[in-house]
């Protein structure tokens, strides 16, 4: 098949900030897909439009044309997210490619996610092309880094293109290597249709859109297609490619990367990882799909203004349209009222979602402390899974609890090994091994409880290593652990939204830190308010907020009643941000404050 020989499907993987997006931009520019002048503007415009529609294309595929030795090639670049939380999405895009560019920062060298991403690519049988970026930096140590890649990742790197994506240096080397090194796709137009849905997003006009890689056969407007997993049949209304904007084409054939629209009403009808085939002439066997991704971090999200529950619900539904990994279900809290228990791929994912709710949907929200999924074995033999501390059964009903653990690898200059080990120790880590990558870098492996990682681990690691260490982890099952629930009582009343599950050795410190923090955050009330931390019936820490003594003794300016009234109206608005536990008013920040206890004061 001559046509296939002119196609290269590839992605770019890298540790965060090693220059993935910059290189992608350069490739688009160099191939003339977009004029330099238009790039910024057009890309931004498109983003804004997408935002209006409530969509974001996370894995953006871009089709580029490139002439090499007189022959024209089609290069399909599939963008990937660059954070450990989204490893799953990276692996999805890898399945649609034959090659992966592995970018490594010339001064930083191999980092935790360099390795993690490289392994993902190897697992997916991709050809890996290492590229050394940022050679313009004075601190660049290009040759050493090449050796590092060979030693640590275990792939040849001596002929890796050395580039500066920022300055546009040696970009053509990369393009040439893509053509030369990456295999062309295999496939047969004559066989029954077989495509992989590697992502989807929602368009208000066209419905759910599938991002696909065609492996066999072809698909065009009017075709009847079948989703092999869901069994649903649709008429294709549009096919196209991204240049980088959606542009409809007549047909997509084997080897192509593009999109497919068929008036699918809801995004949940599109299973990412599903195989699309022809309804008339179906293929026998689907492509190997993906496992459904499981959220690992959970928290409650509540509207600050209880009346905005429905708005929050609609916003989450909109986000879910383009983010199948986001999970949520209704939750009722005594303290916070109606809201949702939400599941995320990691802390970053959690942050992104909450930020989008606030920025794009203009919602004021309260998030409760992030938690993991626990396995609680009860004395009656039943096992329940929960992430919400307030759902934990009473102590006598619990036989034991298991918590999720992760295998973590940390890359660091050797001088920080002590600090990192101390941190991992504090976080209940179990040391596995340590190896020198070269004289300047060490890789340490630990097994850590996930619950400790989501609690201030990244920040501590960063501050204790001055930002030099990098970190990656993968979920590694469940382990028994001595966990207890610490409750917070305000004026003697339990505040469910402030409960946390912690290891028993830390309960005391956390309880004390929590009460101290709350004392600072909760404003004085009309009467004295005791804040207590308790395990079961036992009080482990106590603080007291003394009663408010004054909020106004100033003159009611002559007859200027309007000014005074407006001031009060404003204060009243402020009060809407407060939650009431019994007679105690708590600012919404208090609920978030428990996320950040360590490393302060």
């Amino acid at each position, binding site marked *: 098949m001559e046509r296939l020989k002119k196609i290269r499907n590839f992605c770019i993987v890298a540790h965060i900030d090693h220059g993935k997006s910059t290189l992608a931009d350069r490739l688009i520019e160099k191939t003339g897909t977009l004029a330099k002048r238009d790039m910024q503007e057009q890309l931004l415009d498109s983003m804004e439009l997408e935002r209006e529609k409530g969509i974001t294309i996370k894995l953006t595929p871009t089709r580029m044309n490139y002439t090499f030795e007189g022959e024209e090639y089609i290069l399909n670049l599939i963008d990937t997210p660059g954070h450990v939380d989204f490893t799953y999405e990276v692996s999805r895009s890898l399945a649609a490619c034959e090659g992966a560019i592995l970018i490594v920062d010339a001064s930083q060298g191999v980092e935790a996610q360099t390795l993690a991403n490289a392994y993902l690519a190897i697992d997916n049988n991709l050809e890996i092309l290492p590229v050394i970026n940022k050679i313009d930096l004075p601190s660049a140590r290009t040759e050493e880094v090449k050796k590092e890649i060979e030693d640590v990742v275990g792939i040849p790197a001596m002929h890796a293109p050395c580039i500066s994506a920022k300055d546009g240096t040696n970009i053509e080397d990369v393009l040439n290597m893509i053509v030369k090194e990456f295999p062309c796709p295999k496939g047969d137009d004559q066989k029954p249709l077989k495509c992989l849905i590697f992502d989807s997003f929602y368009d208000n006009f066209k419905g759910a859109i599938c991002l696909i890689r065609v492996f066999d056969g072809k698909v065009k407007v009017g075709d009847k297609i079948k989703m092999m997993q869901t069994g649903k049949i649709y008429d294709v209304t549009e096919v196209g490619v991204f240049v980088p904007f959606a542009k409809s084409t007549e047909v997509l054939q084997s080897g192509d990367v593009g999109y497919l629209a068929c008036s699918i009403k809801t995004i949940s009808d599109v299973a990412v990882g599903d195989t699309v085939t022809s309804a008339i002439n179906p293929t026998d066997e689907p492509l190997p799909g993906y496992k459904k991704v499981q959220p690992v971090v959970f928290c409650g999200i509540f509207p600050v203004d209880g009346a905005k529950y429905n708005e929050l619900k609609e916003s989450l539904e909109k986000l879910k349209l383009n983010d199948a990994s986001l999970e949520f279900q209704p939750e009722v809290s005594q303290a916070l009222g109606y809201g949702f228990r939400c599941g995320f791929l990691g802390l970053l994912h959690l942050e992104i979602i909450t930020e989008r709710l606030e920025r794009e949907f203009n919602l004021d929200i309260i998030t409760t402390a992030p938690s993991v999924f626990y396995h609680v074995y009860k004395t009656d033999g039943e096992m329940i899974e929960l992430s919400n501390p307030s759902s934990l059964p009473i102590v006598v009903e619990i036989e034991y609890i298991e918590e999720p653990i992760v295998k973590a690898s940390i890359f660091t200059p050797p001088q920080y090994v002590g600090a990192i080990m101390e941190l991992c120790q504090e976080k209940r880590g179990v040391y596995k091994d340590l190896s020198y990558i070269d004289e300047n870098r060490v890789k340490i492996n630990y097994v850590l409880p996930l619950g400790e990682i989501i609690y201030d681990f990244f920040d501590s690691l960063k501050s204790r290593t001055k930002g030099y260490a990098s970190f990656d982890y993968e979920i590694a099952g469940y382990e028994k652990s001595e966990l207890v629930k610490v409750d917070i009582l305000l004026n003697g009343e339990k505040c469910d939204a402030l409960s946390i599950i912690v290891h028993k050795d830390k309960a005391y410190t956390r309880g004390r830190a929590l009460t101290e923090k709350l004392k600072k955050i909760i404003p004085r009330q009309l009467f004295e308010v005791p804040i207590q931390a308790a395990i079961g019936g036992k009080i482990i820490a106590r603080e007291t907020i003394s009663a408010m003594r004054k909020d106004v*003794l*100033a*003159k009611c300016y002559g007859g200027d*009643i309007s000014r005074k009234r407006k001031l*009060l109206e404003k204060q*009243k608005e402020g009060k809407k941000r407060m939650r009431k536990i019994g007679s105690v008013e708590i600012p919404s920040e208090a609920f978030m404050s428990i996320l950040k206890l360590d490393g302060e004061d």
Partner: protein
Amino acid sequence: MLGVYIHIPFCQRKCNYCAFSSFVCDEKEVERYTQKLIEDINSFHNKYPQDRYKKVDTIFIGGGTPSLLPLNHFEKIVKALKDNFDVSDDYEFTIECNPNSLSEEKLSCYKKNGANRLSIGVQSLDDDELKFAGRIHDGEGAIKTIEMAKNYFDNISCDLLIGLKGMKKSKFLNGLDRLISLGVKHISAYMLQIEKGTVLEKMLKEGTESVPDEEECIEVYEETTKFLAEKGFSRYEVSNFAKEGYESRHNLKYWSGEEYVGFGLSAHGFLGDQRIACADRFDLYYKDEGMYCENLGNKEKIEEHIMLGLRCKIGVDKKYLMQLGYDIDKNNSLKDFIENGVIISGNDSKLFLNPQFYGVNNFIITSLLPD
């Protein structure tokens, strides 16, 4: 009956903490201003011809420093008032004054023209505190002035400031005792507020001066309240204390939602359902421009009724709120407040704020406002 407020925006010098409309002005400006005031008083009934606006029972000349006003101007203004309004037999007529600008001549003139209440800006009897505040009188001067004023007026009120630099509890209470023994019947005690754009704000920002911390001020305020109670003064409003029968009737009008008219620069009025404020710049004021008018709807009336009623002994009328469409009994906080003695539920559908909680009335009021 209508209340009348007249603003005299002139001072010998502006106090360091002052954010009111007051200016140091020359004679010509004072003349022009008086003229404008008289015009406004004369034309008031053209705009407001209703009968209820003819009869007046409280007059308050405030400032600024009204006692700076040359007596001939003062008499002209009073004449204009008498020409245009029917002053009730039982009336209250207050003049605000500064200790250093009073004289036997002035006092006698005020009395002759019908004034029956003085509000004296004492602020403090401590010379250092006064100096810090930028006042031009001293403690002894203030006492002498009060002694002199006592010969003309029975109803004397003193303004005091808590929170000036150098404040001491014992000193403050001694001063208070002195004022009471001089026969002062009414005390307005305010906590010093650092207002934007004042000299004081600048001094504090630059760090050249400091003021006592809030805890200390609250302590003094609480002691003051206690002390005044012992001396037979009732706290009838957040910042106001009076012997029986000496409450400021004019100020009570503000809090009870009664009507009043304001003449002069930045003077406020409440007529019909309209809150009015004159311009706070001379140029605009002279051209009758820059007026602020706000028509109160039910929502605003409800808010005002709660906010004003709870800051003084007048209280809140549940029936009135109900007429305006707010069933305050449905408010979640009210029950708690009543149970804890914060709000006192009187007979005939009235609610009062327990004076013990006057200092935190913002918190309580905002909890009781409708959503």
